[in-house]
């Protein structure tokens, strides 16, 4: 004979398991970098570097020279040219950047602007020396206001620090063409 107490135990157990299943965070939200959010102009301290978001320009087209060829890139969105000041604190390293748009989407550094002079993708930051670099993103215009730049170690930022830097005051107008020179 089944006693009511036994039924109760099974039911309570089932309910507890259900609650655990529903509230357990999924893999993707657990395996994340450690974020720190920084207001405009603040210097962020990551585990192995410190960085500041110093300036931003918007452009409809960018021009630069790569491997002896002059290139002009246009876009349906807008080019956001972010200026960064950073210093490694532990060892010589590279820094990776993405733009977390206003809608929450992540925009990687534009590879159409790979190899630009002083570009973040080719910069190495040295301990004890503050260097500047520029990061070029290509994105829809409405992703800029309310977005932030995320700086991480260049490879895998999971379980490492990530700086979420609020942009400096953005220019009202986008420039028709920005030439990126060394």
């Amino acid at each position, binding site marked *: 004979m089944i006693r009511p107490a036994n039924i109760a135990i099974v039911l309570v157990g089932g309910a507890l398991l259900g609650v655990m299943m529903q509230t357990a965070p999924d893999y993707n939200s657990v395996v994340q970098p450690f974020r720190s959010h920084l207001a405009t102009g603040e210097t962020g301290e990551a585990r192995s570097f410190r960085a500041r978001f110093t300036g931003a320009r918007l452009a409809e087209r960018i021009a630069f020279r790569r491997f002896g060829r002059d290139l002009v890139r246009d876009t349906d969105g807008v080019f956001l040219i972010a200026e960064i000041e950073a210093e490694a604190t532990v*060892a*010589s390293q590279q820094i990776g950047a993405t733009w977390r748009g206003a809608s929450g989407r992540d925009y990687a550094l534009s590879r159409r602007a790979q190899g630009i002079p002083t570009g973040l993708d080719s910069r190495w930051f040295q301990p004890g*020396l503050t260097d500047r670099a520029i990061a070029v993103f290509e994105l829809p215009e409405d992703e800029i206001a309310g977005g932030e730049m995320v700086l991480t170690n260049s490879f895998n930022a999971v379980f490492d620090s990530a700086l979420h830097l609020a942009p400096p005051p953005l220019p009202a107008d986008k420039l028709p063409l920005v030439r990126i020179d060394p």
Partner: protein
Amino acid sequence: MKHLVWIILAMLLLLATVAIGALTDITDLRRAREWNITQAGQAGAELHGVHVRVAQVWAATAPSRPERAVIVVRLALRSNEAARQAWIGCDVSLSDGSGRVWRPLQTANTDGAIKAISPDGESKGRCTPVPYNAPPEGQEILSDQLFLVPADLLKGAKLRVSALGTRPDGLEFPITPAVRALQ
């Protein structure tokens, strides 16, 4: 009593699983850093069968940016081929006393910069224990590495040499470069 045996067995097996799983991590960790540093002098020292010597060190500063300096280190390796093959790569870094580490620059301009700084106007290329143009046995393999560092490192720095095949063992050389100012 019988239960206890099973419980102990389960715990032992669990420990064995953890140990086997940790083995690769421990090997990785040992190979990640120079845990066992041997101090070497002017004459150089032997590291896993390869004789390593710091042939020359130059440094340069530019008056426009007095806070930074570049250092070129010319390294000489000498050994038979088997020992060099066993090195698997060659990692050179500069460090100060406080644990900060500078790695050699490897950009498109590095070679040109080395040629501009070294008095003989030559660049011997990156450090590799098995270069394609290896000199005959017994002769030294030269390499040049360029470092961009804060100027206060010119007072004295430590050069570390190791390789994937030698770590956790590594060599450390004291370095005091001769400085010349670039125009």
